[in-house]
């Protein structure tokens, strides 16, 4: 299909942010994004003409923010609402090979939903990883450098070279990627073997480094992972906030034509246009 026919569902509920930036990124890359409230997908409190079906879209994006006020845990409430009312539709969407992107709070939601890390099944009943409190104990809002660590499985980074470093800002309090302590090594090895690790935090020399380069103390400096099929991807930093060259932290010195984050959007659109 043509890129302009690719329909992108940008899912919102109360407390979502960055949906406009995300929508703008897809629009500028030529696709047809639509900001959709969860209730429109559930057909709840909506007029018939406002009702939408997840299956009518080719890409699902859960943007950043503080959905449902981060009550219980960041992402837990929206994950529970999705799981209770549209688990089947989402599993079907993922198993058809359609891409799902979670940015920041979206990543937290995908982890709480059990679709990431998604090692053994499309969606686990309980969460199998966690994005916990930053080691610093506070909200970290800063530019971060991310190395593409993926060998080619993740469909969201196909336009990046392995080892390429991109800029994308982080803005979160709960972004420390964690696996269950007693199985940490085994599961991390599985993620590596499956090529599920996508972005790692690095310093200006491209080396793995501590705080503040790794803003949260994430295991193995993980900033983003994909599921074992490569079509569900979550990352804590915001690629939509470096879509344009002038959004780069060093734009006054370097003035690039495009922002680094653009590659994420162009990669997934390229995949969808070829596959569907």
């Amino acid at each position, binding site marked *: 299909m043509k890129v302009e026919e690719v329909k992108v569902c940008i899912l919102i509920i109360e407390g979502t942010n960055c949906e406009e930036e995300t929508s703008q990124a897809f629009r500028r890359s030529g696709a047809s994004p639509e900001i959709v409230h969860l209730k429109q997908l559930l057909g709840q409190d909506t007029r018939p003409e406002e009702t939408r079906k997840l299956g009518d879209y080719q890409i699902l994006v859960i943007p950043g923010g503080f959905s449902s006020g981060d009550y*219980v845990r960041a992402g837990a409430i929206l994950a529970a609402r999705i799981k209770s009312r549209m688990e089947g539709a989402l599993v079907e969407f993922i198993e058809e090979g359609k891409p799902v992107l979670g940015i920041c709070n979206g990543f937290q939601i995908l982890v*709480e939903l059990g679709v990431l890390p998604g090692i053994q099944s499309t969606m686990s009943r309980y969460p199998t990883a966690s994005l*916990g*409190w930053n080691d610093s104990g506070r909200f970290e809002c800063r530019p971060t450098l991310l190395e593409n660590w993926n060998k080619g499985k993740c469909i969201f980074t196909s336009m990046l070279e392995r080892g390429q470093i991109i800029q994308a800002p982080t803005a979160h309090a709960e972004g420390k990627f*964690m696996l269950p*302590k007693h199985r940490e090594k085994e599961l991390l090895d599985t993620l590596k073997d499956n090529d599920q690790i996508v972005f790692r935090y690095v310093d200006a020399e491209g080396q793995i480094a501590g705080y503040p380069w790794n803003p949260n103390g994430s295991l193995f400096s993980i900033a983003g992972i994909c599921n074992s099929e490569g079509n569900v991807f979550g990352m804590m930093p915001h690629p939509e906030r470096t879509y344009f060259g002038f959004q780069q932290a060093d734009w006054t010195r370097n003035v690039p034509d495009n922002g680094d984050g653009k590659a994420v959007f162009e990669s997934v659109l390229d995949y969808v246009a070829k596959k569907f």
Partner: protein
Amino acid sequence: MVKAFVEIHLKKGVADPEGSNTLKALKLLGFENATDVKSAKLFEIDLEEEDKAKAKGILEEMCNRLLANPVIHDYQIRFE
């Protein structure tokens, strides 16, 4: 009908900024003999279920599916 108290704790070793910040504030207020503070969450849940064993099973499922993340949390269930 039973009333249950579900307490959610962070597992040992998981960062607890709410607890450590509270400890800091307590020390500032002069409570210098306070040595550690851990935050926990308490949910009070009314359940239409007479059988306590069954109720416990339901509450455990609530913990696993929403109230706790088994990766970082432990939980305790008590009945009134």
